[in-house]
């Protein structure tokens, strides 16, 4: 699964930085009929988390009303050099992640 992540590489202590992510995913709603006339099974990313230094700083509970190839933007306060980990799960149950290091100083 392709994802594009944008997090500043460096930040000053206390600075609030923006995190953006674009994930390749159909976000199949479960309400759509396919060519065979049957409902296409739901497959959405339903849970998204952001850990900073291992602690959850942001989370999103996601419903089928989020667009295909979902885009999320949010913030975190830079306090120390640590890993920023973005984790998400879809209906297949498999967890995906992207990691970036945020250098603070």
């Amino acid at each position: 699964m392709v994802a594009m992540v944008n997090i500043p590489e460096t930040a000053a202590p206390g600075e609030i930085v923006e995190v953006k992510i674009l994930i390749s995913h159909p976000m199949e709603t479960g309400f759509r009929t396919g060519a065979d006339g049957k409902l296409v099974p739901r497959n959405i990313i339903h849970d998204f988390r952001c850990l900073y230094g291992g602690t959850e700083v942001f989370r999103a509970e996601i419903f089928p009303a989020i667009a295909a190839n979902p885009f999320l933007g949010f913030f975190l306060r830079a306090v120390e050099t640590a890993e920023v980990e973005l984790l998400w799960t879809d209906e297949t149950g498999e967890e995906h992640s992207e990691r970036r290091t945020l250098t603070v100083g």
Partner: protein
Amino acid sequence: MMLRAALLTGALATVATAEERRTGYEMMSPDLRAMQDDEMSNPGMLWVAEGAALWDTPEGEAGLSCADCHGGAEQSMAGVAARYPAWDEDSGAPVDLAGRIGLCRTRHQNAGAWDRESRPLLALAAFVSRQSKGVPITPDSDPRLDPWRDTGRVLFETRMGQLNLACANCHDDHAGGHLAAATIPEAHPTGYPQYRLQWEEMGGLHRRFGNCMAGVRAEPFASGSPEYIALELFLMSRAAGLEMEAPAVRP
């Protein structure tokens, strides 16, 4: 013939008409333009990223990647999408960019063909087209393409389907008008493959042709058919001078 004459009258005429013409981008809301302009926001960039990875991936029995022959796409592919479709000596016919990538696979990589609307082909085409972003469309001047362009023009102006409409009825005569809420664009193929919100994914120009043909209740031609290649050649000539913007975002 008129078209060919127009193409031969030189650069000044081309520039003047390019200024009068408006791409679909210019007709979009500021929000959609922003979605296209910001690389982190443009969903088509996911395909570009996949294409960049595929460019360096060895494929087929030859075990060759695109990069093995072409080197860095930033240099070797710059402006290429703005010149296509181009003449293919071996088949004695024009090929579009997706067709050329397909021929590279079968002729040089000894790999199996990809469907024209398959994800990897769209991804590679998006990556190659991206290398022409901002480059003015400059149709190939090979005279062997001219009869194809003429055929494309005829197709553009031929009424088809139960609704009995030609492309030109909407995109020449009524561009800027409204079909219900939708503003009719001039149909310049500046940003293909493009991310269409209606599709919720990337798709090629020939898929878009199919949408329009189904819209007028006509029997679509096949993707990659000589008819669509001819139409693509005509539309690219008609759009000469407009800047490439792949991957475009459209409603």
